[in-house]
């Protein structure tokens, strides 16, 4: 099963009832799969006229109690950002998948990770954060997809799944947890149902013209983000215990880095990997207590250095932080990473 299809099927098992989408490569298998399969599972697939419309349909559906999701790829995500800011402001639970491709502009259709900023910094306006889950395998994609709906409900927030063209197009066996499929969205005091003439009308809104009121709302959101950053940080640490050189990479790049780490061990060097599974909240604590052996960190990304900012903030200057990136849809080879690592380990870091 292709990565995109695994995500789509996992969404159905995660209880997704509504999907809105617009065609864009390399995520097309998600809407195509759901157009076939979601109606069979009692759900709704609707093709929107644009990504702008899709994110607003998502907003309406989730506000009316649907367990809804949308998916797109990089330029489509850029178009959705106004809507995502609205979803964050109004605290609507929903899931948004980004199967990243190269940018900027139309860029290309090959895999890239150049939306790290878009997925962690809030491309829309205002102070808000979105949980960003970054799988590295298809099994993890499926698990995170199912978990995303639960996290969205738990914190009343949109949740991103950050995939890329490589994960989306690759094939791998996946075992699906089918036990959660029947869960219904429980009646919530904010869902728009019509007031049945037995309660006062409900309003979902973001506009607060009184600055004091808006500040209170924003600080309450910040409280929630703080709770999320305390409870939901996830990362995988691989051969990090006595590492001299610590890699940091996420998603499909981390798979390639693992090969290089093993290769370095075979050559007699101690390398390790920290793989953020949540891009936000970023696993800064993995770098706060670096192993004593660690002399330098290298961040590897399929972009020109975006997660690098978070790694540097987390390392706080204790050891040098290097970077290796390929971009535009170019995929790094383990040999390139090993060569770069050997340069750093030999002290020739430039």
């Amino acid at each position, binding site marked *: 099963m292709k990565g995109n299809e695994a995500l789509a099927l996992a969404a159905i098992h995660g209880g997704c009832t509504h999907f809105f989408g617009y065609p864009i490569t390399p995520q097309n298998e998600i809407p195509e799969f759901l157009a076939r399969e979601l109606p069979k599972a009692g759900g709704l697939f609707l093709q929107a006229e644009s990504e*702008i419309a899709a994110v607003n*349909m998502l907003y*309406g559906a989730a506000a*009316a109690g649907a367990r809804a999701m949308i998916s797109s790829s990089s330029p489509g995500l850029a178009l959705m950002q106004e809507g995502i800011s609205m979803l964050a402001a109004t605290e609507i639970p929903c899931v948004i998948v980004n199967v990243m491709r190269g940018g900027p502009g139309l860029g290309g259709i090959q895999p890239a990770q150049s939306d790290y900023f878009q997925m962690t910094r809030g491309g829309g306006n205002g102070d808000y954060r979105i949980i960003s889950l970054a799988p590295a395998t298809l099994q993890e994609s499926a698990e995170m997809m199912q978990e995303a709906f639960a996290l969205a409900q738990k914190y009343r927030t949109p949740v991103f799944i950050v995939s890329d063209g490589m994960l989306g197009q690759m094939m791998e066996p996946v075992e699906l947890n089918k036990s959660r499929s029947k869960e219904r969205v429980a009646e919530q005091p904010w869902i*728009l149902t019509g007031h049945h003439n037995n309660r006062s009308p409900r309003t979902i*809104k973001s*506009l607060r013209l009184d600055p004091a009121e808006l500040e209170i709302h924003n600080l309450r959101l910040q409280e929630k983000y703080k709770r999320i950053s305390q409870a939901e940080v996830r990362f995988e640490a691989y051969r990090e215990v006595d590492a001299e050189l610590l890699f940091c990479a996420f998603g499909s790049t981390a798979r390639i880095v693992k090969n290089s780490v093993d290769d370095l061990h075979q050559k007699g060097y101690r390398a390790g990997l920290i793989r953020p599974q949540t891009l936000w909240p970023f696993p800064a604590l993995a770098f706060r207590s670096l192993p004593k052996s660690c002399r330098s960190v290298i961040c590897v990304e399929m972009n020109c250095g975006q997660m690098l900012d978070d790694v540097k903030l987390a390392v706080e200057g204790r050891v040098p932080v290097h970077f290796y990136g390929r971009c535009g849809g170019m995929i790094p080879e383990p040999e390139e990473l090993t060569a770069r690592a050997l340069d750093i380990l030999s002290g020739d870091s430039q």
Partner: protein
Amino acid sequence: MSVIFSKTSGLTETATHYCPGCTHGIAHRLVAEVLEELGLLGETIGCASVGCSILSYNYLNVDMIECSHGRAPAVATGIKRTVPEKTVFTYQGDGDLASIGTAEIVHAAHRGENITVIFVNNAIYGMTGGQMAPTTLAGQKTTTAPEGRQPEFSGLPLKMSEMLAQVPSASYVERVSLHHPKYIRKAKKAVLRAFTCQMEHRGFSLVELLSTCPTGWGLDPIDSLEWLEANMIPYYPLGVFRAPEEV
């Protein structure tokens, strides 16, 4: 003494923020009265749009959601496709519907979404201070067309009802006016037909309400009503542009 007129329970007690002479208040009342008369207040979800009517959720006694500028028809689509048994409407100004939101309104009509659109056309951007809208009349002065709209530079005003009536899956499209009690009674019938259309699952219905914006137009309330009649109605003819057979 018998009660011959009372306030509709479709409106809340909150005093509106609209300027004196603004017809948004009348448009609200028509929607509220119709929903009350159809017994739908408790079964309705409204979509407020960006414009002077953004705070309509404070005045209408129904569940409501605030939408980004122009996107109300897409939000309404998401709601209606989730709870098709509810009555779903959007309330949009002409900047919202005829400018930034043209794609969303055309495609809601294109899909034949079973929603009702209340389209308040006051030929100007009211909330942001009287700028030119796609509906601003030729020669009409606005803050961004200080010499008056020049068609050779900015084109001729968009006739949204005529445009939307051409969309194959649109069901009911009518233009009415709020400048005079006689016309307001007709407008109410149009709003009633539009919501009835939705109750009968006939698909996309839209009522365009020609409205005043005394503040944006720089006219007093009475002159505004006269200006509407003298200038808007000749360019924006009233009438039904599309109707399902039996409505």
